[in-house]
């Protein structure tokens, strides 16, 4: 295993610990007012979500020179499967396995498979929900013969319409940030950024 992989594991552990700590310290995020109804998600509930949509390359920052390069990727497909477990009212921790595939302008295929731990806050404005979340983990990437594993941080939100007591449908928009480190080739160090826009289907377990 190369050394950046250990770094990725460390980021995973830190992200999980930070998420857990935040969960303990944060209060009930529900705004129980005339506008927002009581949050239906209690501790012990769980959500299983499927997402499918588009992914876009946004950013390619040369970390050695501080300059921006072209990412040279066309629009691609993004998908994910996540499991979120509520540890407090309206606050969940969980994990997600996903993928993003996109073609490059030279005809190569870029593929990223992030595996992340996620913390999400569920704000309810029935029948709608706004679910901002932060996730951190590691992502396997391939471009032709090249492959690498790097840490990944994801920031975004799901915008859901609660179709029934069990199902919610909506849209996710999320920014992926992937710092890519090569200890043997420091000139190759980059920060990549992607935008995920996916349709979301959430099942309340």
């Amino acid at each position, binding site marked *: 295993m190369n050394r950046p*992989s250990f770094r990725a*594991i460390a980021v995973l552990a830190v992200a999980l610990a930070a998420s857990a700590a935040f969960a303990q310290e944060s209060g009930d995020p529900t705004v129980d007012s005339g506008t927002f109804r009581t949050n239906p998600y209690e501790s012990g509930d769980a959500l299983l979500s499927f997402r499918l949509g588009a992914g876009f390359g946004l950013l390619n920052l040369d970390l050695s020179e501080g300059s921006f390069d072209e990412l040279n990727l066309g629009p691609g497909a993004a998908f994910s499967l996540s499991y979120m*477990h509520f540890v407090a009212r309206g606050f969940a*921790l969980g994990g997600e396995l996903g993928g993003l595939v996109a073609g*490059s302008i030279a005809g*190569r295929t870029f593929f990223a498979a992030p595996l992340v731990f996620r913390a999400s806050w569920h704000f309810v404005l029935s029948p709608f929900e706004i679910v901002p979340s932060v996730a951190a983990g590691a992502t396997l990437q391939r471009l032709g013969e090249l492959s*690498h594993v790097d840490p990944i941080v994801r920031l975004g939100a799901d915008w859901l319409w609660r179709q029934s007591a069990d199902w919610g449908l909506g849209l996710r928009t999320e920014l992926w940030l992937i710092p*890519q480190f090569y200890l043997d080739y420091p000139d*190759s160090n980059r920060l*990549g950024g992607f935008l995920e826009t996916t349709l979301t289907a959430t099942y309340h377990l």
Partner: protein
Amino acid sequence: MKHLARATLALALLSAVILGACTAGPLGIFESLSLETPVDNGTEAFSGLTPNFVVRLGADYYAGVGTLWKRPVGGGAWNPVPGTPDGMLATSAATDGSALFVLFTDGDSSVVKEWDGSAWAPDLATTGIGTMKPDALHYADTTLFLSVGATDTEADPDVTSANIHSGLGFATAAFATAPTGGIVKALVHDSLTYYSAHADDVYSGDADAGGLTTMALQPAIGTVTALLARGADVVVAAGASGSVAVWDGSAWTPHVIDSAAYLSDLVEVPAHGGGTVILAAARGFGTKVARGYYEVSPLDWSVNEDHDLVTTTTNYQTTLEDLGIVECFWDAADGILFACTVGDGLWSNHWNGTSWSGWNRE
């Protein structure tokens, strides 16, 4: 919390498996992406054809793909050059830096035209070649050459004798006696001497003064298909046997590249990681199959099987691996390498001073 703990453990185990299964490549993924150029620059007219040549004149590249095309060095679309002879193909070209000389032929007749970048000059006289048929143009040292061949009959197009002509009307023949059997494959100048390839032999001497003679020592690599002058008394010859031979001023030293290959051209370019690499292009011929090209070290003449000195293995495999290459052109000034493939158009690879972009279709 028990569910969360189990999920966390499962994710951690899966992470460890994925992390442990991967190794980094020689080039960063995002860096590699940043170096890409479009695989198709929009010239679909080239995609199923065999380009004959690429040359540079001033701020434009010129390609012989059926007719004569040009595009700006800085990028842009290929467009036909106006004023070319109707019904004739652009089969060969050479430049002295101020003018482009192009050989057009329709199989029966030929014409050598001169282009200054914006207009055609009167056709060059070729009365000096007699009944010989023009085959290719070469510019070496300070002289424009026209290699020619003679055939027995119209029904038998095999060239039975050949020569190289220069001077006014191409009246000066490089060989006092035209050698028999096939066309002249190459002509280079190493800053001291001309070297020419014909059949299994290499000739040397003053080509522009009619003084090419057979070298006393020969490379012994079968039909010599290409020559590369690397400096004074340093010449590399490529052979139909799949070998190269290196002339150091006193002897030829052969090196086997791939006995299953028919080497067709040689070009020396910068190597990713430093130094240079010699590309030995290969094409299908007889029982020999198309192999793209070989990356040959000029230090020990070993072959880099990974193809990562001028491109990534994947890019090579998805573009040129199974293609025959008839000619390469390297523009050192702007770092662009062209490959003329057999039946799959024109490809280019960009050097940014550190890395190669990978092969992209022109």
